[in-house]
């Protein structure tokens, strides 16, 4: 196989995810392909256990000559994240201008990050929407690779979907990728892996930027004691712990469907501030600017 593209400076690809997703498989395919193309390749991987979920990453560097096996901060040309929050965790490795971010939007959420212990509760893990993140990185693709893989009949080929997406960002031909892939996956799964590869490739080729969603800040007037107070909620900081809801003496707060606090009975709120004081996340502020100091004050 021949590649014209032989830059003097190595190309850096960082692949991240959590244990068991196939980070190493993606990096092996890429490294073998580069080797076949006659390039020098260095690959280094760490599968450590971070506190909240096991973090796995692999650095692949290839080019005419490659000295260090490690990619420095802000030096990755391409980053592939098999898990969404892992992608965010490593984002500072991506080149500021011109780095490409490719990520599965699926989150593997460690139990400790749940906002609420009720069945079906949403987690507060990586709350930024894919659109927000893609906007931030400039050049990025956030695809639901896990669902695409499940649609092909095997959730485990999500890594191959992302490999297909990655293939669009590098100068190797499709057949080269598929050849290496065939040699590395179990023979029984060759077919589904090939389809997954093409699905990821096509997704990027037909990419349309999704519409943005803005987070809203809310300040609501409250009047439980007949005075003119306001209660301000910073939604983005609320983790839905339920403390304010249960501790409010007037029962005016509730968690909404997204498990974010909401003032549902502003007429009952006396601006007692208990919710403000007990919120571990500073998500509530009570403003009593226009009111005389309450009797408690002195």
């Amino acid at each position, binding site marked *: 196989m021949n590649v014209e593209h032989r830059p003097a400076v190595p190309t850096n690809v960082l692949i991240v995810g959590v244990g068991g997703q196939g980070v190493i498989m993606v990096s092996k395919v890429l490294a073998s392909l580069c080797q076949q193309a006659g390039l020098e390749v260095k690959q280094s991987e760490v599968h450590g256990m971070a*506190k909240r979920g096991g973090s796995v990453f692999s650095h692949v560097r290839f080019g005419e000559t490659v000295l260090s096996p490690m990619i420095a901060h802000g030096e990755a040309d391409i980053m592939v994240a098999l898990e969404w929050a892992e992608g965010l965790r490593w984002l500072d490795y991506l080149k500021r201008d011109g780095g490409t971010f490719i990520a599965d939007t699926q989150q593997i959420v460690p139990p*400790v*990050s*749940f*906002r*609420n*212990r009720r069945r079906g509760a949403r987690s*507060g893990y990586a*709350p930024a929407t894919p659109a927000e993140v893609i906007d931030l990185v400039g050049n990025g693709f956030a695809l639901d690779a896990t669902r695409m893989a499940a649609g092909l009949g095997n959730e485990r080929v999500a890594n191959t979907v992302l490999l297909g997406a990655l293939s669009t960002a590098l100068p190797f031909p499709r057949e080269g990728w598929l050849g290496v892939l065939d040699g590395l996956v179990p023979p029984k799964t060759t077919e589904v892996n090939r389809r997954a590869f093409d699905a990821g490739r096509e997704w990027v080729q037909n990419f349309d930027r999704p519409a943005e969603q803005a987070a809203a800040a809310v300040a609501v007037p409250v009047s439980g004691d007949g005075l003119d107070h306001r209660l301000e909620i910073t939604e*983005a*900081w609320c*983790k*839905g*712990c*339920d*403390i304010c*809801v*249960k*501790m409010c003496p007037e029962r005016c707060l509730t968690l909404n469907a997204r498990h974010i606090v909401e003032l549902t009975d502003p007429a009952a709120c006396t601006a*007692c*501030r208990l919710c403000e*004081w*007990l*919120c*571990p*996340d*500073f998500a509530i*502020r009570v*403003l*009593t*600017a226009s009111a005389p*100091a*309450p009797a*408690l*004050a*002195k």
Partner: protein
Amino acid sequence: MDTASANDFDIRDYLRVELLPHFMCPGCGHGIALRALLWAVHDLKLAKDRLAIVSGIGCSGRVGAYIDANTFHVTHGRPLAFATGLALARPDLEVIVITGDGDCLAIGGNHLIHACRRNLHLTCLMFNNEIYGMTGGQVSPTTADDRLTTTTPYGNAEPSFDACALAAAAGASFVGRGMTLQTVALKNLIRDAISHRGFSFVEVISDCTEIFGRKNDLGSSPEMILRQKGSMKPDTYGNVVDRPFRPNAVQTGVLARNDRPEYGDAYRAAVLGAAGAAVAG
């Protein structure tokens, strides 16, 4: 001093808001403890430039990183050692240590007793959640009897420290305990501890909702914080009411206080006196 009407206190003035939401788990008491500290700083009208926060390693230590002041996040167990050097070199700063039960009493236990003994002007806030929260829930020197942790899967058999009794016995000249449930009282206690000239030790009863709470089946975050009420030693209730609370009664407020000589002053007098004598001789 006013409490409920402190409308001018906006915690965001004291936070590195760009780092929020903070890393702590939903319901974690350390966030409330942080509010109490910053509110106390506000009450004292301490300029942020004059404030130096030194914190150790742990979820408690991480809290320091969110404070918009001079902050030092140092090695595990050593915040008191760093703070001692800082307070001696820069007596113009108000040095406050944030530490955890593991950081302060296990690996850092030796630093604690000597800081108490020395009586240098420092404030040490120990966020006590009875566990090593950050590392996934190992037993700590304050874990109560029979509690489940990752290292005591059959229940904790070790007796625990009463950190306040320890600090008082080692000579701390201001010792107090507060709980996150009583945010205003906690704020006032921290304010008094900072104002005290000498070494102040404050134990803050805090909840590790996600690890300690889950391991020990203590319910949701609001249930956990309400349990603090049950563990409190009521001084206004009669016998009948408080009886059920007796077994794990925890006393809050200022527990020990005296005005013995502050070490920084004594040190400077001795050293500068000696230096002066050397020059003169």
